[in-house]
């Protein structure tokens, strides 16, 4: 990741999103946004703040509470030449619109023999840790990555947020941009000019030699925090953020696994059937002979997200539980234990 230099401007994760949309709308008249509360109110997370003021209600559209129709608006308008950004307030609400996402958005091009193009970006917010309970906290990225035809990004910092969002908007295929609710206020260096971060290219957040940690979204930051703790114990972690989850940058992850010989995947989604399973399978297919330990996975327990903070704090992985998992992969104990 680019390190901040003193003269670099910093921006929050949410404003990096906002700036990507704003600059893309200035650059391309075909780009418009639609979603619940995004117009006059600027979105419940402030993601679309000020955009209707600049671009008017023709290009920044307040929709009814109608998730199916919101995605359908994106499908129909993209296939007829526009470049829509359609917002689902919470990732959980994609379930209300799954037909439009899974059976329409993802498949139209293929079913039409390649003749359709859907330059459509679906934006949404995922993640737990706010006591928002079982229907406002899920990490459902694995479902999306399972559907051929969709591309999925999940940035872990403001720099990637802006660059990936620009790529999503420019992309000629349907993309889903997942923001993590608890990263919205995260601040970091973000160049003022428009730039893109390519889809499908992982980022080595921290180079290391002893163990590879693969994680994205908020968990990438928790993994970095765990790596910092472990560095004091003499454990050198390589932390990789795939940034794009579909298509997945297997090559970077496999190369790292071959180098460190140990690998752990950390995600916030439930462990069973999570992307960790797919990544573990790919690594064992391509780096089996290099591995000194089974591919490890950290994820949430197999239950809905509990409301009570007393339960949720154990439900969501954090730096401490990730550090435990990494030590396990290395067969090490915590200091003093």
């Amino acid at each position, binding site marked *: 990741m680019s390190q901040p230099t003193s003269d670099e401007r910093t921006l929050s994760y949410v404003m990096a999103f906002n700036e990507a949309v704003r600059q893309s709308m200035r650059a391309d008249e075909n780009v418009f946004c639609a979603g*619940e*509360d995004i*117009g*006059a*109110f*600027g979105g*419940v997370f402030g993601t679309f703040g000020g955009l209707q003021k600049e671009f008017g209600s023709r290009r920044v559209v*307040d*929709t*009814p*509470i*109608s*998730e*199916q*129709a919101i995605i359908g608006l994106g499908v129909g308008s993209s296939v007829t030449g526009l470049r829509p950004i359609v917002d689902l307030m919470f990732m*959980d*609400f994609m*379930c*209300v619109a799954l037909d439009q996402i899974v059976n329409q958005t993802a498949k139209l091009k293929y079913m039409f023999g390649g003749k359709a193009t859907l330059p459509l970006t679906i934006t949404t917010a995922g993640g737990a840790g*706010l*006591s*928002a*309970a*079982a*229907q*406002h906290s899920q990490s459902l990225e694995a479902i999306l990555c399972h559907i051929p035809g969709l591309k999925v990004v999940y940035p872990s910092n403001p720099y990637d947020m802006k660059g990936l969002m620009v790529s999503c908007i420019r992309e000629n295929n349907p993309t889903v941009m997942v923001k993590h609710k608890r990263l919205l206020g995260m601040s970091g260096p973000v160049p003022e000019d428009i730039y893109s971060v390519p889809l499908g290219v992982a980022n080595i957040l921290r180079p290391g030699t002893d163990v590879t940690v693969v994680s994205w979204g908020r968990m990438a930051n928790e993994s970095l925090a765990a790596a910092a703790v472990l560095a004091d114990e003499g454990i050198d972690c390589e932390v990789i953020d795939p940034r794009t989850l579909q298509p997945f940058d297997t090559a970077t992850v496999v190369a790292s696994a071959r180098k460190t010989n140990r690998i752990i995947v950390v995600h916030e989604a439930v462990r069973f059937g999570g992307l960790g399973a797919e990544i573990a399978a790919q690594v064992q297919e391509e780096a089996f002979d290099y591995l000194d330990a089974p591919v490890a996975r950290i994820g949430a*327990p*197999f*239950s*809905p997200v*509990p*409301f*009570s*903070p*007393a*339960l949720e704090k*154990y*439900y969501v992985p954090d730096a401490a539980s990730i550090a435990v998992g990494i030590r396990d992969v290395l067969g090490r104990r915590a200091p003093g234990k």
Partner: protein
Amino acid sequence: MEPTPDVLRDLHRRMVRIRLFEEAAGKLAEAAKLPGFLHLYVGEEAVAAGVCVNLTNADSITSTHRGHGHLVAKGGQFRPMMAELMGKATGYCNGKGGSMHISSLELGMLGANGIVGAGSPIAVGAAFTHKYRDDGNVAVAFFGDGATNIGAFHEAANMACALKLPIVFACENNEYGEFTRRDATMAITDIVDRAQGYGMPGVIVDGMDAVAVCEAAAEAIAYARAGHGPTLVEAKTYRFYNHHGVQNLGLKYRPDSEVEVWKQRDPIFTLEAKLADVGVLTTEQCEAVWVELRADIADAIAFAEDSPLPNKDQILEDVYTPMAVAQ
């Protein structure tokens, strides 16, 4: 049919219970003592109370994200409600659901809901059970004006009419969905206009007038119990507080003057004036109800605060129902 004095007193009590619970929850939230989202029902009490006063525990209701009022009106107890809002093990959902999923199947309250519109199809299912068993009970689906923009509502309304189920669709039209005005998201003014398209009667009622809601609901519920099928009741109402929490979020999405006009029509004070007028409850007697129920709230807060948190091991409990072990 004019409610009896007993029903009027009952109505009043239910509304005061809702108001006190919500005011207390709002204060606790502002003191950062409640985790998560909190959607308060203050201002809309006449709707939940006016409908539920006509129901028994054997009747079913489904609720919304703004669900405390429905549960209180259906007989919800303050202690397990407050405990649930605090995420305690003694809460109605053992701390697993919180404000947005609060429920009590014993009371026929099939859950607040985090997904807008999701309650109506579930109410259709409950109504189906009532018809299937011919038990004489009904289901009521509560939902907002905004929820009528979602497919689930339309499918539920159509199915309920097609199957002629004993159900009442009770719409709380408070003119906003979150921070967006209703008229920005639909081209009609009255939600009842939708009823005709499904073949059910629709009635508009003043949602700030508990007696009016009670009468309209009584009629719709009797119609359902008699096997005539669904009715859509639209109550014109208003929430006094923000979409969630108490204060507006800084950004103005509705004018203070509008809020003030509606607050002048406070449904509880309106009812109290009426009760005094017709000699059912004097001002002093009304005040005594508040005093008595305030003590209950204080008790519930103390109970909730003293209650244990759920245990870490409970995360994996309640995901599935265990099968009875074969004998």
